[in-house]
């Protein structure tokens, strides 16, 4: 929907990717766009992710604003060379002469019983790269507003769309062209006892957990990170200063995840606010399993609740 709005209002916006045309994308995110805007502005590419990223760079450097789709985040890897070595640095390298106003959209995370490699959440690989913005929406409304912002941003934005969100119940979103701010976390629930930071699909479990916790008298503040890089440290630190406790929820494997950065920021700039050790509730440091076990891998409401209860019981 955000695609349509912006293509209508900005002739420089084009859409490329595998099966984005007649098929409208495997999650139907680009449905109807080719009919509306033609086969040049909405182009199926050959099956080649390095090519998708590379031609997006070439187009962007010559004045277009490509929205490029990677079919699943597990197929992002062939595109990383182009993204890291060029997309993230063309502006820097040429001192602002050539730029990359590109949005790379890709489904993120699991929980929909998809085949192997279709459930990855490897935002770390993108967040560590200087020159990229990494954004992940947690609801249809946020997807609309943040995607608009991403398309309008003059720099490359990696836009990670939670697969569980495509499947979740529909939410009415007004198609009003109103963008949400990038580089800003959103406080979804105010609370006094503990700060929980999460993003993307995990916001659902986190909100559910905070509701359960509220029933037992624990008042959690829930922060939707939204822009995963750069991190809005101020919002997080302000919250921790208030609550004194921090739990981070991430679907990705734990080791060197975005959650580690959040914990590090708190341990650097909010250490004396912390009344209890930080806790991370994350995917395990193992391969995202095939779907029979995926629910055991993805942090559950129970695991979040347990972690928060644990932190409330600290210090021992």
């Amino acid at each position, binding site marked *: 929907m955000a695609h349509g709005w912006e293509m209508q209002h900005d002739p420089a916006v084009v859409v490329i990717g*595998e099966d984005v045309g007649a*098929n409208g994308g495997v999650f139907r995110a680009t449905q109807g766009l080719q009919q509306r805007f033609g086969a040049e502005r909405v182009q199926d590419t050959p*099956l080649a*992710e390095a090519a998708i990223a590379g031609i997006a760079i070439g187009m962007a450097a010559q004045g277009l604003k490509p929205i490029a789709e990677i079919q699943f985040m597990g197929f992002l890897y*062939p595109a990383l060379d182009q993204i890291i070595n060029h997309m993230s640095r063309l502006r820097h390298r040429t001192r602002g002469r050539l730029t990359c106003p590109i949005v790379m959209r890709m489904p993120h995370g699991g929980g929909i019983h998809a085949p*192997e490699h279709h459930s990855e959440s490897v935002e770390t690989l993108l967040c560590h790269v200087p020159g990229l913005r990494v954004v992940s929406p947690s609801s249809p409304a946020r997807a609309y507003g943040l995607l608009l912002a991403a398309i309008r941003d003059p720099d490359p934005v990696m836009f990670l769309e939670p697969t569980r969100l495509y499947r979740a119940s529909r939410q009415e979103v007004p198609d009003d062209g109103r963008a949400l701010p990038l580089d800003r976390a959103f406080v979804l629930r105010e609370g006094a006892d503990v700060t929980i930071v999460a993003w993307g699909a995990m916001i659902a479990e986190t909100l559910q957990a905070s509701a359960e916790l509220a029933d037992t008298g624990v008042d959690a503040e829930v922060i939707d990170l939204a822009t995963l890089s750069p991190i809005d440290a101020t919002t997080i630190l302000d919250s921790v200063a208030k609550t004194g406790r921090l739990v981070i929820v991430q679907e990705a494997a734990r080791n060197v995840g975005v959650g580690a950065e959040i914990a590090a920021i708190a341990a650097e700039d909010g250490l004396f606010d912390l009344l209890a050790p930080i806790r991370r509730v994350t995917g395990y*440091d193992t391969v995202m*399993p095939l779907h029979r*076990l995926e629910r055991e891998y993805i942090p559950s409401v129970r695991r979040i609740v347990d972690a928060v209860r644990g932190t409330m019981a600290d210090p021992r």
Partner: protein
Amino acid sequence: MRTVIEFRVEYLQRLDPDGNAVGELPAFARDPDEVLRMYRAMTLARAFDAKAVNLQRTGQLGTYASCLGHEATHIGIGAAMRAEDVFAPVYREVGTQLWRGVTMREILLYWGGDERGNDFSGPRADFPWCVPIATQTLHAAGAAMAFKIRREPRCAVATIGDGGTSEGAFYEALNVAGARALPVVFAVVNNGWAISVPVAAQTAARTLAQKAIAAGIPGLQVDGNDVFAVREAMSAALERARGGGGPTLVEALTYRLSDHTTADDASRYRSAREVDDARALEPLLRTRRFLEKAGRWNADRERELLAECARTIDAAVADHLAAPRPSTDAMFDHLFANLPERIREQRIAARRHAGTDGH
């Protein structure tokens, strides 16, 4: 301008859609028992495939990629290979895998979302299913390099789809295989579509066989609905590879009669008419006609065969459905030979949370 070098791409067909021989048949096709063996395998693959689709539709299997229409290509490849060769498939080569001894239970386990399905009890050295398009072609090249270094008379075979030929990894594999004269055969299964993208939108190359020329290796087209042609071309290529003659690319022209996977709806992007036309060329019918003309097949035998297939398949399905759910430990098993301490702690944590949250 002076001509430096010339190339041609040839096309092989041995069995036309009516079941008539074209040109001189290779020895195996003149052996009716061998033809029967292939026909039976093709029929079993189709029956199994239909069952798998059905299981998915009824919520008993995850997303599944049907091989409907690909049976001649799959069995032709399988029949040309030796047991000690290694196979690096994509995600659709059920026919070849069954031929090589991957069990139905294993196939169902995999698509049912269980890694144990990749622990093939039959072809122990074969590569597992491969979802990231084109990557498997490099594994085949690497395996072939191992065989070459150790002077073993073995070959590797990789399959790849028409869409897959757009990925850089595919060309890298062709090129390194050519440069080092590796004993590997690349079978391009051109079924006309890569999800919603037809071959003509995938490349300006009029054949996919000609992609071999970029690597300086031989490439040819075969009728991929003709199990004789596929097997003959693959056998010749394997022979050559085994003899030190290096790699070959074989493009098998077939058609994806099914949706891309059970998660796809092909009617969104292609016409029923096109599918109908393709169905007329499908591989089983012509093989059956060939056998019937040779007096080796009839409706009774067909019925018997189908019943036998159904029994085999039903037993495997029952076996599969009875397979116990893996424990959370399975997530950590085989991650490393020696699981690091911090991850051992996570294994314990996972056990603690197993079965919470309603699952």
